[in-house]
């Protein structure tokens, strides 16, 4: 598991433990049991976990997946 995934797993285990496994299997946030507000909470948590204080909050939606989150992090220079 690379550093990004280690941090994502730590974040999810702390904040959204019921969704961790499904998300790592490739499910969308919605299918992993998170509502639209939960996805924004996830983005706030990404800011803290990865020190990226410039995320808007609308980069990911309920249909997004963890791969979209990885791509987002890469696009803002993480990893």
């Amino acid at each position, binding site marked *: 598991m690379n550093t990004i995934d280690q941090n994502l797993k730590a974040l999810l285990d702390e904040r959204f433990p019921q969704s961790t496994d499904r998300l790592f299997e490739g499910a969308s946030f919605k299918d992993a049991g998170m509502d639209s507000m939960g996805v924004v909470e996830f983005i*706030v948590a990404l800011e803290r976990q990865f020190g990226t204080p410039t995320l808007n909050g609308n980069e990911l939606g309920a249909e997004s997946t963890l791969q979209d989150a990885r791509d987002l992090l890469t696009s803002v220079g993480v990893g």
Partner: protein
Amino acid sequence: MTRGAILSGLGTWLPPQVVTNDMLSSELDTTDEWIRTRTGIARRHIASPGMSTGHLATEAARRALKSAGTDRVDVVIVATSTPDRPCPATAPVVASSLGLTGTGAFDVAAVCTGFVYALATAAGLIAGQVADSALVIGADTFSTILDPRDRTTRVIFGDGAGAVVLRAGDQAEEGALRGFDLGSDGTGVDLITVPGGGSEQRLSGAEAAPGDRYFHMDGPQVFTRAVRYMTASVRKVLDAAALAPEDVAHLVPHQANVRILDTCARELGLPAERVVKNIDLVGNTVAASIPLALAAGAADGRLRAGDPVVLTGFGGGLTWGSALLTWPGGLTVIDG
């Protein structure tokens, strides 16, 4: 002695008409369960025809003056973004309705941060010896600017008013306002806005689109910024007083959305029970939100004399701000 502003009265007023989630579900594509889980709101109060923001403000102010045991103040400030008229300000009419014709009176427009901005302004006027007392009112009737078909904003906002009386005193007294932090970011003007009806639209030469007179909000972008700026502002006002979040007895945030409040508490490392919430019963009441939450916290006995209390708000502008105070002894809140 260091001259400062002391909280000496607190009053609120809510219009009697209540709109429940089930009532909204009957006309919009939403459900009680959706509204509760996404916003934490169960009901909100709505102003009836014939009322106005000034009416709500006057009722709350009357109760705050009674709570303070006075009928005179040196200045009246109304925080609102739904004034009775685009021009003039609402505060002079409110002052006259209270029998205070002749008193300095003006509005402060900082949307959901309006009460904190108005409180800071009043505290500054008292510290600078411009006034010995002040009435600070947060009042809004957002029901008048919501798109009736917009389920995302209709479920969130409610109408209401809350007011405090400040008097000059010693910064070391219980009830003293000990510090403020104010901030803004105009690059976020489009995130919380009523786009039409102002000079920008009029001078553009273009006709306003039908929806431009309604309130618009970008929920996800507002969520992240609300958490970012309110938590930073709370830390800033605490740093200036050499305090840490764990020293705060109660955080009284603008009641934007329960998920925002819970996220702020988590980011600040504050236990949930130290965050005062009344959003379930009133919704997001904009400038009235913080004084209504203060009254709720006082009513349930949580706020005790000498407690360090932090108020924090975030709203359109973008604006944000925080205030640190010690809770006064012997304050009787008068609710409407």
